[in-house]
C-alpha cells in the first residue's frame, strides 16, 4: 500500500477548497455535513467547467488560475468559520436527537459500511492505474499539469487515441491540482483524489435515501447496497476510472433534489449546479444531465401540470446554470473538432445495423445487469422498487425512478450505434454505465421498500407509525 501523507493531505485540502468554492458559489453557510458535501461537489464541478473558458483566456495559466481561486476561497471560508464559530457553537448540534445510535441494525449497517470504506481505501492506495485510469484520465492530468491548461495537443501517434482529448476534465483537473500541491507530477501519487469523491457518493446516497424515507436504517442500507457493488468499491473504481466520480455527482444531484423536498419544498440552489456538473466528469454525463432535467420537469408536471411551464420560467436561474454547463461542454467538443469514431454516425447504415443487433444488445445488457456475482439482486430489486414507487411514492420519488429508468434505457440504446463488436463493448462498458446511476437506484430501492412497508403494515402498526422507520 502506498501511503503518501503529503498526497493525502493535499487531497483533503483540495476537497476542502472545492467545498469552500461551493460555499462562495452558492453564497451560503453550510452547517451540516450534507450541505458541505453539496458545496464540495458544486465547487469541484464548477472548477472543471470553467477550466475550458479559462484555457482560452490563458492558454498556459488556466490551471494556476483555478488553483489560486481555490486557495482564496479556502482562505475566505476559513476566516468566515473562525469569525462565526462561537455563534455556531451556541446554535450547536443535539446528540440526543440521534436515536438510531441505539439501533443495533443501524449500527451493524454502519459497521459493514465502514469495512467496505476501509477496503476501498486500501485498494485505491494499493492499486496503480488500470487502463483508462492511466491511458485517459491520468494522462490528461499529466498534459494539463505540464501545459497549464486544456489544449488541442495529444501525443503524436496513430490518430485513434486523440479522441480522448474530448473527455471532460474533472478527474484530470483534480489529479493535476493535487500534483501542483505536491510540487511534481507522479502517476503513482494522484489516486488520493478518489477518496473524497467516494465518501461524497456514499454520503449523498445516505442523505437522499434518508430524505425520501425518513429512516436512518433504510438510508444506511441504501448506502451499503451501493458500497457492496464491486463496480463501486473495487475494480475500475479503485483503478482510477471516472465512473465512480460521476456516480458521486449523480448521488449529489439526487440528494439535492430530495433534500430540498424534505426541507423547504422548493428547488435546491445546489441542484442545477450539480446537474450541470455531470457534464464535467464523463462524456455520457450530458445524457445524465438530460435525465436530471427530465426528472425535474416530470416532477413539476406531476405536481401541477398546468403550472409546469410557469415553474420552469420561474426557475430561469437554475435553467441558465444548467445551460451554461452544457454550453461549455458543447463548445469544448466543437473547439477540439475531433470525431469519436467509437459511435455512429446516425446514418441509414447505422440504423440498419442497430435493427440487426437489437436482440444481441438487449440480451447482453440484461445478462450483464443481472449477473448476481457482480450485482447481487441489485437491479431486479430496483425494477420491483421502481414499480412500487410508481404506485406508492410521492411525486419526487416517482420522478427519480422515471429518470433512473430513462437513463438506463438511454445507456442501453447507445450500444445500438457502436462501431465496436457490441458484445465486447457492452461487457466492458455497461457495468460502468450502470454504476453511474446506481446511487439513484439504491435510493429508489430503499424508498420502494419503505413505501411498501408502510402500505402493508398491519393497521395498528400504521397508526402508531412503527411500520414506517426505526
Amino acid at each position, binding site marked *: *500500500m*502506498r501511503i503518501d501523507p503529503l498526497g493525502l493531505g493535499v487531497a483533503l485540502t483540495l476537497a476542502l477548497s472545492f467545498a469552500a468554492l461551493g460555499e462562495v458559489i452558492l453564497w451560503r453557510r453550510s452547517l451540516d455535513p450534507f450541505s458541505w458535501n453539496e458545496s464540495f461537489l458544486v465547487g469541484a464541478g464548477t472548477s472543471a467547467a470553467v477550466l475550458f473558458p479559462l484555457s482560452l483566456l490563458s492558454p498556459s495559466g488556466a490551471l494556476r488560475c483555478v488553483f489560486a481561486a481555490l486557495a482564496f476561497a479556502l482562505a475566505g471560508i476559513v476566516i468566515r468559520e473562525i469569525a462565526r464559530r462561537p455563534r455556531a457553537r451556541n446554535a450547536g448540534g443535539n446528540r440526543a436527537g440521534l436515536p438510531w445510535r441505539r439501533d443495533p441494525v443501524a449500527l451493524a449497517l454502519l459497521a*459493514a459500511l465502514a469495512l*467496505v470504506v476501509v*477496503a476501498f481505501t*486500501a*485498494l485505491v492506495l*494499493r*492499486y*496503480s*492505474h488500470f*487502463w483508462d485510469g*492511466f*491511458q485517459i484520465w*491520468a*494522462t490528461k492530468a*499529466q498534459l494539463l499539469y*505540464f501545459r497549464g491548461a486544456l489544449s488541442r495537443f495529444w*501525443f*503524436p*501517434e*496513430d490518430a485513434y487515441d486523440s479522441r480522448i482529448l474530448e473527455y471532460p476534465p474533472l478527474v484530470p483537473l483534480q489529479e493535476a491540482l493535487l500534483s501542483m500541491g505536491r510540487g511534481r507530477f507522479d*502517476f*503513482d501519487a494522484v489516486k488520493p483524489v478518489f477518496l473524497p469523491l467516494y465518501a461524497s457518493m456514499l454520503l449523498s446516497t445516505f442523505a437522499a435515501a434518508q430524505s425520501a424515507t425518513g429512516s436512518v436504517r433504510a438510508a444506511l*442500507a441504501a448506502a*451499503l*447496497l451501493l*458500497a*457492496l*457493488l*464491486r463496480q463501486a*468499491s*473495487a*475494480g475500475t473504481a*479503485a483503478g482510477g476510472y471516472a465512473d465512480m466520480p460521476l456516480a458521486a455527482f449523480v448521488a449529489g444531484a439526487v440528494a439535492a433534489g430530495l433534500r430540498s423536498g424534505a426541507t423547504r419544498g422548493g428547488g435546491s440552489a445546489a441542484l442545477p449546479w450539480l446537474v450541470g456538473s455531470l457534464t464535467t466528469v464523463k462524456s455520457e454525463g450530458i445524457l445524465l444531465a438530460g435525465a436530471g432535467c427530465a426528472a425535474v420537469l416530470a416532477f413539476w408536471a406531476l405536481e401541477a401540470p398546468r403550472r409546469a411551464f410557469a415553474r420552469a420560467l420561474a426557475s430561469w436561474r437554475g435553467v441558465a446554470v444548467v445551460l451554461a454547463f452544457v454550453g461549455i461542454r458543447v463548445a469544448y467538443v466543437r473547439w477540439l473538432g475531433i470525431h469519436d469514431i467509437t459511435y455512429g454516425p446516425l446514418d441509414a447504415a447505422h440504423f440498419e445495423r442497430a435493427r440487426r443487433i437489437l436482440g444481441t444488445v438487449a440480451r447482453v445488457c440484461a445478462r450483464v445487469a443481472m449477473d*448476481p*456475482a*457482480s*450485482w*447481487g*439482486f*441489485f437491479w431486479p*430489486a430496483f425494477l*420491483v422498487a421502481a414499480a412500487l414507487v410508481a404506485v406508492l411514492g410521492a411525486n419526487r420519488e416517482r420522478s427519480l425512478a422515471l429518470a433512473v429508468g430513462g437513463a438506463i434505457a438511454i445507456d442501453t440504446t447507445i450500444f445500438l450505434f457502436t462501431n465496436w463488436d457490441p458484445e465486447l463493448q457492452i461487457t466492458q462498458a455497461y457495468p460502468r454505465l450502470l454504476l453511474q446511476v446506481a446511487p439513484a437506484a439504491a435510493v429508489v*430501492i430503499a424508498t420502494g*421498500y419503505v413505501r*411498501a*412497508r408502510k402500505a*402493508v*403494515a*398491519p*393497521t395498528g402498526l400504521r397508526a402508531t407509525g412503527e*411500520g414506517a422507520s426505526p
Partner: protein
Amino acid sequence: MRSSSWRALALEAAAVLVMAASVLSGGLALPREVRVAFRDAWPSVFPGQLQQQLAVVEASVPPGPTLLHVSDWASDPGTGWYSRLWQRALYPRNAVILLMRDITPERIAELRRQYRPRYAISVGTPPIDPGFLWHRDLGVVPGSRQTWFGELRP
C-alpha cells in the same frame, strides 16, 4: 394470520434476500480483490523492469530529442499498454512517436521525415530494426516483448 401480515413478512423476506445477496457478492468480491491487489499488483504503474529500461534510456538520451517507438499491436495487443507507458514516462522530457499499426519501411521513413527522431525503441519477437546506427538489448518486461534501444542512422 391476516393477509397484510403475510405481505409484510414477504416484504421483509425480500428485503433480507436482496441485502444478503449484496453482502454475499460484495463480501466475496472485495476481500478477494484486496488479496489479489496486495499479492499481485505492481506498486507503480511503471513496473520495476521498465523503470530499469527507462533509466538506461534517460542516461543515453539528453532532454529534447524525439524517440521513435515501434511495436506491433496486431501481433501483440499487450504492447499497446507498454508503448504508451514509454510515451508518458518520457513526457515532457522527450517526445515519443508511437508506431503500432501498418509497420512498413515506408511508414517508418515517413515518420522519420515528419518528426526527425534521433533514437528509437523497438519491441517485438524479434524487434523490428527501424534503421538503428547502434542498439542495445534492454531485455524483457513481463507482459511485453524483447526491447531494443538505440540511435538511428542519420
